[in-house]
């Protein structure tokens, strides 16, 4: 009988086996990374808006308080999106005829609301309540990042469940005194942990890993 395969077949055989194993490992790793990547989570992707509204300018530059526009953040699940009239309360006076603000004025004239593009969106089976977080000392910037430095708003965190759990499991790493909640440039102090523990006790923050804390 003559050789059925060429010499090289041995090497090929082993190489291909090794290759298959490696390929599997790599695919696994890539999937793991992909689902946490900005491509999937839209973290750090600025969104185009009908009006190029800049938090950097308003919150950062002018130092307008979050609550001026997001009025219901302290007492409702929904932080609240400013009605056109809120914009107009200033922009009927300043930049009253800046072309970039035409959509706002148009909305005010016609009564047709502005259609903003959603930046933070949770699935419908997740029930998030702004008011309780704010009241328990979770700062805006903890989840929304340094909005005051965003010309166009983008998502600062993945909003993946594992991300929520980070804080729900050990809030002491993230909570801050209530009075600093709306302070954008608040940095956790060196002794954040001890501070956090004190606040968790003080605000009596209870067990947060029950499923129905977020899912109903």
């Amino acid at each position, binding site marked *: 009988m003559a050789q059925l395969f060429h010499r090289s077949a041995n090497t090929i055989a082993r190489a291909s086996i090794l290759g298959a194993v490696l390929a599997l490992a790599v695919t696994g790793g890539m999937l793991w990374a992909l689902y946490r990547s900005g491509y999937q989570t839209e973290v750090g992707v600025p969104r185009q808006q009908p009006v190029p509204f800049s938090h950097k300018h308003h919150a950062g530059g002018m130092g307008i308080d979050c609550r001026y526009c997001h009025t219901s953040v302290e007492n409702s699940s*929904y932080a609240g999106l400013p009605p*056109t009239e809120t914009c107009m309360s200033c922009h009927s006076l300043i930049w009253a005829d800046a072309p970039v603000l035409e959509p706002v004025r148009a909305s*005010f004239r016609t009564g047709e609301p502005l259609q903003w593009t959603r930046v933070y969106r949770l699935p419908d089976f997740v029930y998030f*309540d702004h008011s309780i977080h704010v009241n328990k000392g979770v700062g805006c910037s903890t989840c929304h990042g340094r909005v005051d430095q965003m010309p166009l708003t983008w998502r600062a965190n993945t909003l993946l469940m594992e991300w929520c759990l980070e804080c729900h499991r050990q809030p002491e790493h993230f909570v801050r005194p209530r009075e600093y909640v709306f302070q954008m440039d608040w940095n956790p102090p060196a002794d954040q942990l001890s501070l956090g523990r004190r606040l968790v006790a003080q605000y*009596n923050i209870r067990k947060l890993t029950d499923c*129905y804390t977020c*899912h109903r």
Partner: protein
Amino acid sequence: MTQKDARNKTWRSLDELAGTAEFQRFLEAEFPEPASGGTDPVSRRDLLKVMGASLTLAGMTACRTPAEKIVPYVRAPEDLVPGKPLFFATAMPMGGFAKGLLVESHLGRPTKVEGNPEHPASLGATDVFGQASVLTLYDPDRSQVVTRVGRLSSWMTFLAALNVAREEQHLKKGAGLRLLTGTVTSPTLAEQIRSLLAEFSSAKWHQFEPVSRDHARAGAHVAFGQDVNTIYRFDQAQVILDLEADFLGWGPANLRYVRDFTAGRRVGQGPVAMNRLYVVESCPSITGSMADHRLGLRAGEVESFARKVAQRLGVQDASPGSPGPHDQFAEAVARDLAQHRGASLVVAGDQQPPVVHALAHAINHTLGAEGRTVIHTDPVEAMPVDQMQSLRELVGDMQAGRVDLLVIVGGNPVFTAPRDLAFAEQLSKVKLRVHLGLYEDETSALCHWHIPEAHFLESWSDARAFDGTVTILQPLIAPLYGGRSAHELLAALAGKASLSGHDIVRDYWEKHGRWKIFEESWQVALHDGLVAGTRLPPKRVALRAGFLKESLPAQKPGRGLEIAFRPDPTIWDGSFANNGWLQEMPKPLTKLTWDNAALVSPATAQRLGLHNEAVVELRYRGASVRAPVWIMPGHADDSVTVQLGYGRTRAGRVGTGAGFNAYLLRTADEPWFSAGLEIRRTGDRYSLVSTQHHFSMESRNLIRAGTLGEFQKNPRFAQQVEESPPPGLTLYPGHPQEGYAWGMAIDLNACIGCGACVLACQAENNIPVVGKREAGRGRSMHWIRVDRYYEGPPEDPAIFHQPVPCMHCENAPCEVVCPVGATVHGSEGLNEMIYNRCVGTRYCSNNCPYKVRRFNFFEFADWTTPSLKAQRNPNVTVRSRGVMEKCTYCVQRINAAKIEAEKEDRKVRDGEIVTACQAVCPAQAIVFGDLSDPNSRLARLKADPRNYALLAGLNTRPRTTYLARLRNPNPEIRG
């Protein structure tokens, strides 16, 4: 595929109709109309509505595809915080009588109805119709355009046509004008009609309700010589005789009566008193199921029974017939009533002839009940009439061609009028026929004009409760389908088409309110949901001497089979036929869904060789109807009960074709019952769907009941039936209980089995309707069900009700077997069900001994119909196909309350959290609360000796427990 299948199929995709122009405009309208003067409620709601809609769309579509747009207000409405619900007080008029409501509104969308605690007819509870009304509001099958002989038209063209007719009538003082309404208690509407009749002096106003209270009115008229409204004080009564009244089941005051009645049955520890209820009826009712002694008599025999009791109590001229088999019973009842003089009462049913009512009045008189347990007032109706007679006259005029213009305000007479009047036939003789209705129904089909009616949640109006209290109905949303209210139609008829419903009602109260500062009182009335000081004062009325002799000779009950007509417990007179929730709700006693049936007693069934689902032909006075048979334990022999309201031909996609039409047998002179029915077997079968097939408890102590005596002897009798393993008996260390410990107790002694909890839960938790076929496969989705068991002989069984929600077991069998941890235990003792984690193995359901878990075998939830999306509770996930679901103790309400409490750095107060089933329960049988708080109402109930756990032997340690049922039998009557 049969028509029924088709119906059930199409039920889940109702988008076409909703696709009509104005509806789309309403939903897709991304801009609110400019708010003219923020205070005007109409335009405010208007704006909320539109906003609500657009936000909803965003939210809802997000269920499937990510919603990329968020749409803020242009001008924010005051007193509305997005994300927080608002509550508005209004009332639901039914048969003209109002029951007060508080309606929950999310961003302008009414989503859930609660009772108005202030309102005398509600006291915080609602009935199934109230709960379901919100679905009717959004029903895409409702008529949405003015039609002229079936073709699309407009309100304006109608007005033009109407004015021509008006002019004609003006010439002949309205001699050809007829107005047909239901019972009217609305002061405003009454005023409008009065002024209309003033304008057209020879026009006539007719009233007709298929489920009328004529006999009660007539009976009172006989007894007192005047129209009198009778109110019962069951809380004051220790002995009650119910002559087929089913006063817990229906009627303008039933919720109030349930509360009063059950209050008289609550027992704590120690020596206790409990009222005693005797019920005499032909077909078992929920009132009958609560009776301490129930006597099954044909409807026709009730009179003679009443006469016997009356005679024993010394009522003159009671002239009881020959001695009968039930004389001892009557004897004992009479004695018991007499012994509790002043604390006893007799109540007669609306289906019973006037004489029985008169007898009841006479008996109550001799018992000295007046002023104590029975109160009389002036009639609540604006114009009490014998409605059957009124309709007869109308038909007569139509026949004689005396009617040129007939305006039918609400109702569906073509379907509901007695057969022998041939209403439909004579209707065709009317020159111009106008119908105002929620649906394009049988009547509108025969009318020239059909005007879409505004639902009561869409319109301004007012109505009186059973005791006269007036509620001003305010709309929660602008008419979805451009409907008009009766007021607006009447105004148009009076040539004032420009007036809005709001103006009309407001004007009336400005004129007749007799309020010092109108605006203030008006706002208060709207806020409270009732107008202070409108309750009718009690009035003393004297019995006419010897009225029994002169006017009412004793009637012989007819020979042969008797047929009795009853309003359907879930779709009433047929007006709710297109409401999926009501159709699918199991009828309290038969547990049938989607159908009515001819109910017969086991003995009669045997005699006639009938079995369940056998189709028979009912022949009665020359008419005949094919109906399926359902055997009803406890039903009187030789009597057949049929429910009205089914067999609709133009109800809508849900109701059309369901069941058989019992109106086809009904005659004007004997609207409720009469002998002379013939039954012929056809040999056919018709499949009826009952959600409970097995009615014996198999001696498993599921419902534990005892007599008052037993209870006094041994309060713990219920707990000694079955040992529950001691908590320590486990190898496991167990989990520490931190914070709240939620739990529930259900008092079987209070529960009357009305099933309001089932619908309240459905409305609160976005529970889908699955249709008859699916229900038949054991796929109904109700999170709480009311189990019904019989005990004892089939001819006269004891009837038990047991509401079964999730037990939230501490050792939950369902949790252990879930492979993905989609159902696990919360730290506060909730058995959590996380839909989005569920892969749908159904293992948990198999392992649930209480079988309270429900599975989405198909895409049951309606993801397509926009209007139905608008109805949903935004705080509850809409479950999709392949996911398990179950009672969550209304976790959304728990979380909301906890969040509010946490914000105020306090604990949740006892009673702050009220589950949907608890809120609706008229008997207050369900109590939810925190076990860790020893003073909570719940903790006290759990300490009650009657408290026991269902299937305790399995050591599942349910958080939901039951309080044993008690009976208070009369020792003189053997069990």
